[in-house]
């Protein structure tokens, strides 16, 4: 309970901070629209040359793209900024300030930052999802919606765990700004359903980097492909990843020497 109210306080401060810079809101809208247009061009080019991509039709792929944008917005609003700050702290030795606080340090480093304007992508992604669902031929039912929301939440947890493990490598390797690029590159694979990738890559995108669970599985829920078994697997994997991330983080902190503080 105390941790929740702590997270809420940080969230509020983050929002208040961002509200000072309102022009950024419009710039974010412009940038999100540019990204959307580029995505649509890519989709349109593919369907200019073919009628279906490995069993996925155009509206179904639009749904995948919507989830991709939505989840990307969530990551950039709540997960990535925290991890970037953690990277900086490890490099500069200022992580001391987080470690000396009388609450679990993992919670602190995970909730300190929030980028309100990135929520534009969440809304835009939701819009794309709705547009796609309206164009689907199959009926969209309440269980589908429920499955979608659960899958989305589990996907978010997995991405967080993955990011935390990636960031924790900073305790051993110091200069890791390139990690952001690494993550964004791999996350971009989620723009398409993972079933189109060759086996080895699909395996990697499912278990090493949980892009499949973050984007494809929620999109499967939207397009009536999701089985209860997949959802159960997602739940188990999320729990496993969470424990693993916790372990890696603890090992990392033990290795931290507070370079200059």
């Amino acid at each position, binding site marked *: 309970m105390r941790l929740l109210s702590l997270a809420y306080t940080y969230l509020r401060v983050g929002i208040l901070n961002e509200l000072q810079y309102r*022009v950024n809101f419009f*710039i974010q809208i*412009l*940038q999100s629209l*540019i*990204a959307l*247009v*580029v995505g649509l*061009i*890519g989709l349109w*080019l*593919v369907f*200019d*040359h*073919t009628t*279906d*991509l*490995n069993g996925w039709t155009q509206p179904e792929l639009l749904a995948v793209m919507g989830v991709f944008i939505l989840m990307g917005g969530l990551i950039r609003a709540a997960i990535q900024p925290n991890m970037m700050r953690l990277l900086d702290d490890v490099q500069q030795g200022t992580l001391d300030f987080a470690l000396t606080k009388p609450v679990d340090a993992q919670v602190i480093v995970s909730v300190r930052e929030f980028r309100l304007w990135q929520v534009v992508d969440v809304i835009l992604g939701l819009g794309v999802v709705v547009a796609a669902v309206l164009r689907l031929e199959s009926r969209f039912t309440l269980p589908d919606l429920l499955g979608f929301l659960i899958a989305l939440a589990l996907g978010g947890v997995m991405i967080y765990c993955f990011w935390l493990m990636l960031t924790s490598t900073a305790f051993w*390797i110091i*200069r*890791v*700004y*390139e*990690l952001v*690029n*690494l*993550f*964004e*590159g*791999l996350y*971009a*694979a989620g*723009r*398409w359903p993972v079933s*189109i*990738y*060759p086996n*080895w*890559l699909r395996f990697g995108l499912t278990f090493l980097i949980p892009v499949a669970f973050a984007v494809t599985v929620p999109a499967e829920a939207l397009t009536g492909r999701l089985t209860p078994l997949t959802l159960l697997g997602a739940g188990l994997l999320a729990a496993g990843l969470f424990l693993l991330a916790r372990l890696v983080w603890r090992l990392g902190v033990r290795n931290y020497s507070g370079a200059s503080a």
Partner: protein
Amino acid sequence: MKRYLDFYLTNMKTAVLVEFQYRWANYFYMIGMIAEPVIYLVVWSTVAEAQGGQVGGYTAGSFAAYYIVWTLVRNMNIVFTPYGWEERIQRGRLSMELLRPIHPLHNDVAFFAGWKLVVIVLWLPLAAFLAWIFKPTLQPSLLEVGVFFIAIWGAYLIRTMALSLLGMITFWTTRVSAIFEMYFAAELVLSGRLVPMSLMPEWVQRLAGFLPFQWTFGYPIESLIGALTPGELIGGLGMQALWIGIGILLVNVVWRFGIRRFSAVGN
């Protein structure tokens, strides 16, 4: 002249030493970058197979060649980012560089050129790995290999000029990220980075002909994978030279006006 040569050689040597130290960071960067072409490659190979083996003149094998060569060309395309200019100008870091008796741009060009040497070495095993997995059809002639090696450096210079120009917009306004993103989006679509230009509709191809983008991306790739006639190969180098010339000219003009507006904020 010797002064410049010395400057370039020393700077490049420094870059090589620095970047080899950070080889793991460099590798992370590359692996992240390789995801992009692999995605395009998988999507378009799938399309090609669905269309009975080829689409827009490309088979799965030649798509593989296109996107594997893509990875090296993309690496050559990385230059001092306009966001770096933004920081340089906003934080006043440029003041320090202005004190040197040499144009700051030389510093960027030399350092990144040195870095490229490290990048090429690090790229080779990755390229071998990708080739082993995706089985590209690639049989370049000697002329094609020669043109390719000049063309990747031409691409490097064109993009250096273009992004420096873009970065220098920060002399006039400090909210530039939206402008930068618009540029990158146009570049993505019109350069051959997203798909080979032959897959684009006619009118897009014609539009791209008037712009510099494809000379930094599509052309170097196509020069190696055998998509061009000898005339087009040599003509392409000429076009690159033309765009480098235009770029240098514009950079000088914009620099002259921009630097007057620079007031070393925050230093």
